[in-house]
């Protein structure tokens, strides 16, 4: 006998529940890092200290939220309407999205430098690095499949919440890893496994834990 935790998909429920479900699935059950394995590079290299992980995590949340929404505008209002005319929206989105992400990161870097020099310095080199974080492009691409999926049919607000959720998921994952790594005593690890080796093992165990969440919220 199977027990269904949630009978009806919350995606068809009231607005608030729908957004909450999108947020929870994006950040936890469908975690972009630990369930989709995107953005591994900064995840491994910037998780040595909780402080730098925190800075990078916040920056990723901000950029993902904004770029997923801008890319939704681009996709839903320009690319999709042109698709019936033969425009290859699926190939074109890849090029356009990465251009938007790169430009947005540059813009944000200038903005933060101007508004708060302190925040700019504390983020340091992590800021420009966000451009090459594949989790950001990945989130935008997952968003497009949810837009065309007739069961989900993401709108602007959904995409905004999804972008925030994906960024928040990345933030949670890197903070967890940084927390674990800062408590590890390197001396007790065999020399060959120190550094990247043990980090990959920890990340793998964390990913297994997150796989269990999968399917808890069926969208």
């Amino acid at each position, binding site marked *: 006998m199977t027990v269904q935790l949630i009978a009806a998909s919350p995606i068809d429920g009231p607005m608030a529940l729908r957004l909450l479900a999108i947020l929870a699935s994006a950040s936890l059950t469908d975690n972009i890092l630990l369930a989709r394995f995107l953005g591994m590079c900064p995840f491994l290299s910037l998780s040595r200290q909780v402080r730098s992980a925190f800075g990078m995590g916040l920056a990723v949340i901000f950029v993902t939220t904004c770029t997923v929404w801008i890319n939704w505008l681009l996709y839903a209002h320009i690319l999709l309407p*042109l698709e019936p*005319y033969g425009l290859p929206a699926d190939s*074109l989105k890849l090029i356009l999205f990465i251009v938007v992400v790169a430009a947005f990161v540059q813009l944000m870097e200038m903005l933060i430098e101007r508004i708060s020099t302190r925040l700019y310095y504390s983020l*340091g080199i992590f800021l420009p690095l966000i451009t090459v974080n594949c989790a950001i492009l990945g989130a935008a691409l997952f968003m497009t499949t949810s837009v065309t999926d007739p069961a989900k049919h993401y709108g602007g607000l959904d995409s905004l919440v999804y972008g925030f959720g994906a960024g928040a998921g990345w933030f949670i994952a890197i903070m967890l890893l940084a927390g674990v790594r800062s408590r590890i005593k390197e001396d007790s690890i065999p020399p060959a496994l120190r550094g990247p080796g043990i980090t990959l093992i920890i990340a793998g165990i964390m990913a297994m834990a997150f796989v269990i969440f999968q399917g808890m919220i069926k969208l």
Partner: protein
Amino acid sequence: MVQPLSLWLVVLVATGLTCMLTTLLAGLLLLAERFLVNYGPCAIDINSGDRQLTVEGGQTLLAALKSEGIFIPSACGGRGTCAYCKLKITDGAGPLLPTEEPLLTKDEIAADVRISCQVKVRNDLKINIPQELFSIREYRGVVKRIRDLTHDIKELRIALTEPETLEFSAGQYIQLQAPAYDKSPESVYRAYSMSNPPDDNRAVETIIRLVPGGICTTWVFRYLTEGDEIAFSGPYGEFRLSETDNEMVWIAGGSGMSPFWSMIRHMKTAGIERKTTYFFGAVAKRDLFFVDELTELADELPWFEFIPALSAPADGDHWTGETGLITEIVNRHVTAGRNDLEAYLCGSAGMIDAACKVLADKGITEDRIFYDKFN
């Protein structure tokens, strides 16, 4: 039902769309740069009121000072690796950057010392510049002579044209400017010690070893010819003979010969008669140069001894001199417990680190070891 467009039109629309978006974003960025990164003119106060500069904000402090004719030593060309461009910034520099932290000691951080190629001028600054750095300026010259010293080391002689003389002390270095060429899209500055004695002040000589893949050395070896115009700045550096009468040990490898070739001839003409032993290390005979000249000097000057050493002499070398790593030779020749000995080192970082260890074992304290490290 809409009619699909023809393939050509689709390609045109797709390209147009991409171009439009890119142009739009580029325009947005340019606009943002115009308004956001525009810091306007900023005032730089040097040595509490000695000099006042007004520079355009947004650039690095090193670049701003250079545009005003103040040359701060920098061997890496503003990449934040050599840590030569340290300056005391007493006001307005903002918090310490992660790129500066590894290059500064705790004492330096506490004393407001910063890396001037990393600090951006965003507001008015108050800085301290050591007086001797003001004598550093840009020079122009003509390449008078390029000669091969070994298969991979050349000697360069530059006759000064603007200004016509350069006052320096033996051991100091210049920063040669390699212009943009097919291997490097922008001009770079690289540091080379002067090898001519200071009384030869109407020209600059330097000894350059070809670094495989090196931007400046490749340019010197492949493109530079006699008669070419060349620009450099200088003189830089604290590597020079001390004012004491202590006995000296000199240790050099390869193009590390440069400062000592200048020093020994300076000592001879200036009548400085300090007991000096010069250890010069090379791999095989084909890497040796100036041996005849230095041996002659050693015969002539009773206070000077020259010891060349080969680490791996070739079969046909018929080498009868010292054999082994330069550190082993030094270890053999220098007696321990000499606390009046001064050591001068010039060469690769690996050689210097190894030699410093040997010298420390001999009881020579850190304040008596002076070096010029290649990195």
